[in-house]
């Protein structure tokens, strides 16, 4: 064993208190360690995910360092041994106000109708610093950048404060490169190449830029208005499905502790809002496992027989952000992922056929709404291949945040709602369906079912701890009745790229790989309640999801009685022709082409 290196530490004084920190610590971190809250705007640090943004640009975090003439930004200045620092002197307060007034001078005063209002870091900061007027704003030139609306995301760059968090997320974490800081001075914005609309960039709609934007510059397209209209329309039967990650996060919007499960209240709220049937996307997650798990077994079976067309590894395909990513970046590998649709789309396809027939409603009279932690699902639901004669399988996809707004609008006392249960048949699910919300959860659910179907034996333990955790890339080998199945897991698209590069080079040792676009998986999705830079919230949500799984009487997908019934009454076998027609899809090459003049 290697001896642990002793850290070199230094001593300094912050606000008259002594503190000892590791050499290289920033003033901000030293102060936070002591419970001193220095305000920040551009800086963001998601410790558990190893993600940090520190451009040192906004200067809200300035502090006074004894012996230095100028104030220093705490987020990028390292502590010196023996330094004496004061964080809230009158001079500091004055400087912070001036900085804030400057930032606000060309910022639209749109708070009344801004989608970020109430959750906006800039608004909070203006309040915290007591800004009541903005000197010189009559003469300030206001930026007038056009509004860009894509299927999932709205960019309103007049509200951009150039913190560049979105750029960091899109380039460093996701390695998508859809956004970059462009132009300079007053014209500077974060934009796609040639300042085109996001729709024409390689954007995956993962929404991670939206999740970290401190202002209303990046927000989701709001579909609650359309949903309300559908509910009001007496000719429509409105069916709603809710994704696993929603129940582990929605409570935060109503002041509950992160990690509080609100499944029962969520169902009650949706009934109160007037949805005709309240179902669970987890049901469709179980269905996904039946289809994807069967595909996995078929491919691995071929592989074991030495078939060259076995097409190993199989990649999961339930994350639409991930699907967009490989369509743009790895179109040469587009036959490698499973062809199974995402649970959202499987649900829509079954609701508008099997269930519509059952309740005798015509397809055009049924509206399917999904509540998702995800912004990529908005785009996914609008893909033309997921519609029949122009009628989409999923009509509207709204985020956890949009649902919270909707609940507040309806004056529902969420915290005091009774717990209610999902409707049947599409509301029953196993614990395997629930863990889809966490990184590693889809492959764990698939392993549970594939193992039992392959070996004919019951698993003695269902918790695969080796597949869980927050490291960006994980791997595990599971004994599949004598065959060691190598599993890879990546969350965050930059991590996915690493595994895909290996597959492309023919060096991958994995038989199955799970990818989720968002760091942490869907619990950290672009449509979830904002974490405001606190990654412990994501961990609490992940824990809640595993808890929900544990509490379920049924924990493997193939034992869900309504899934068994669905195959018996309607689909036949997993991967049957009918199942293929309704539950599987194909992928497209979306890489930008360089066209050469002949």
């Amino acid at each position, binding site marked *: 064993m290697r001896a642990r290196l002793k850290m070199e530490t230094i001593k300094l004084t912050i606000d008259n208190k002594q503190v000892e920190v590791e050499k290289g610590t920033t003033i901000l971190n030293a102060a936070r360690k002591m419970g001193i809250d220095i305000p920040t705007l551009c800086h963001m640090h998601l410790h558990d995910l190893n993600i940090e943004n520190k451009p040192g640009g906004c200067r809200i975090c300035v502090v006074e360092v004894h012996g230095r003439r100028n104030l220093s930004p705490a987020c990028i200045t390292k502590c010196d041994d023996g330094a004496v620092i004061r964080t809230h002197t009158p001079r500091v307060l004055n400087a912070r106000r001036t900085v804030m007034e400057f930032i606000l001078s060309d910022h639209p005063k749109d708070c009344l109708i801004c989608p970020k209002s109430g959750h906006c870091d800039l608004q909070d900061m203006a309040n915290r610093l007591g800004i009541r007027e903005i000197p010189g704003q009559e003469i300030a030139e206001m930026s007038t950048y056009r509004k860009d609306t894509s299927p999932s995301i709205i960019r309103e760059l007049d509200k951009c404060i150039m913190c560049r968090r979105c750029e960091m997320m899109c380039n460093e974490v996701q390695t998508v*490169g859809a956004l970059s800081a*462009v132009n300079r001075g007053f014209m500077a914005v974060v*934009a796609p190449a*040639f300042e085109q609309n996001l729709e024409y960039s390689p954007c995956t709609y993962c929404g991670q830029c939206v999740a970290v934007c401190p202002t209303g510059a990046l927000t989701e397209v709001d579909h609650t208005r359309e949903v309300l209209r559908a509910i009001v329309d007496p000719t429509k039967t409105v069916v709603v499905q809710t994704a696993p990650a929603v129940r582990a996060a929605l409570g935060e919007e109503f002041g509950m502790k992160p990690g509080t499960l609100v499944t029962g209240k969520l169902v009650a709220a949706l009934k109160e809002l007037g949805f005709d049937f309240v179902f669970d996307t987890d049901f469709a997650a179980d269905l996904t496992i039946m289809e994807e798990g069967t595909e996995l077994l078929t491919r691995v079976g071929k592989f074991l027989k030495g078939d060259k067309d076995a097409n190993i590894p199989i990649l999961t395909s339930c994350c639409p952000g991930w699907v967009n990513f490989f369509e743009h970046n790895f179109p040469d590998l587009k036959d490698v992922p499973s062809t199974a649709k995402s649970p959202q789309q499987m649900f829509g396809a079954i609701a508008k056929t099997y269930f519509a027939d059952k309740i005798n409603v015509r397809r055009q009279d049924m509206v399917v709404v999904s509540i998702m932690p995800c912004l990529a699902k908005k785009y996914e639901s609008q893909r033309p291949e997921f519609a029949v004669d122009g009628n989409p399988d999923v009509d509207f996809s709204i985020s956890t945040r949009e649902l919270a707004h909707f609940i507040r609008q309806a004056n529902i006392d969420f915290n005091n709602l009774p717990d209610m249960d999902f409707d049947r048949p599409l509301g029953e699910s196993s614990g395997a369906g629930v863990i889809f919300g966490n990184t590693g959860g889809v492959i764990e659910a698939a392993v549970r079912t594939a193992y039992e179907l392959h070996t004919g034996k019951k698993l003695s333990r269902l918790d695969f701890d080796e597949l869980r955790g927050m490291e960006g890339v994980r791997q595990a080998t599971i004994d599949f009745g004598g065959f060691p199945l190598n599993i890879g897991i990546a969350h965050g698209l930059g991590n996915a790229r690493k595994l895909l590069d290996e597959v492309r080079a023919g060096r991958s040792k994995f038989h199955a790989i799970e990818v989720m676009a968002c760091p942490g998986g869907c619990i950290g999705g672009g449509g979830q309640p904002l974490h405001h830079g606190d990654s412990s919230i994501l961990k609490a949500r992940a824990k809640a999801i595993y808890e929900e799984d544990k509490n379920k009487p049924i924990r493997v997908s193939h034992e869900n009685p309504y899934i068994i019934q669905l195959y018996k009454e309607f689909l036949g076998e997993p991967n049957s022709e009918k199942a293929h027609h309704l539950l599987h899809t194909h992928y497209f090459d979306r890489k*930008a*082409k360089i*066209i*050469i003049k002949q």
Partner: protein
Amino acid sequence: MSSIKIELRQQDVDKINEICDSFNNDPVELINVLHKTQEHFGYLPAEVQEVIADKMNIATARVYGVVTFYSFFTMTPKGKHPISICMGTACYVRGAEKVLDEFKKELAIQVGQTTGDGKFSLSSLRCVGACGLAPVVLVGDKTYGRVAPDDVKAILKEYE
């Protein structure tokens, strides 16, 4: 899907690739690659930036970010008669800015732009070392000294 459809000739693409290769396709050399490419084409249209991004494995948005950050890169082709106005101290003091304003007004373009007919483009220069003649204007290779705003119309007329 990207709507940018690139229409370059094969020889242009080859030239860009050659420049990128000469810098080992190293992303830290992007600015030098852009310089060399602009030297060759005279400007950096979107299509050229896409090829560079693809070849060097850099996000196109990032390439565009660099092109728009540095004022010496341009995305518009120079006019047939490129006009440059010296903004060095001597010229500035003797009213170069008024001369520049007059050109802007007459041509109805800003610095860095080209007229719709492709005839004239406008740029400003650092000191050209002809301070005795300040303010100095260059049109193509020809130098005009002691230019006053009133001379602008006549200068332009020479190129009609």
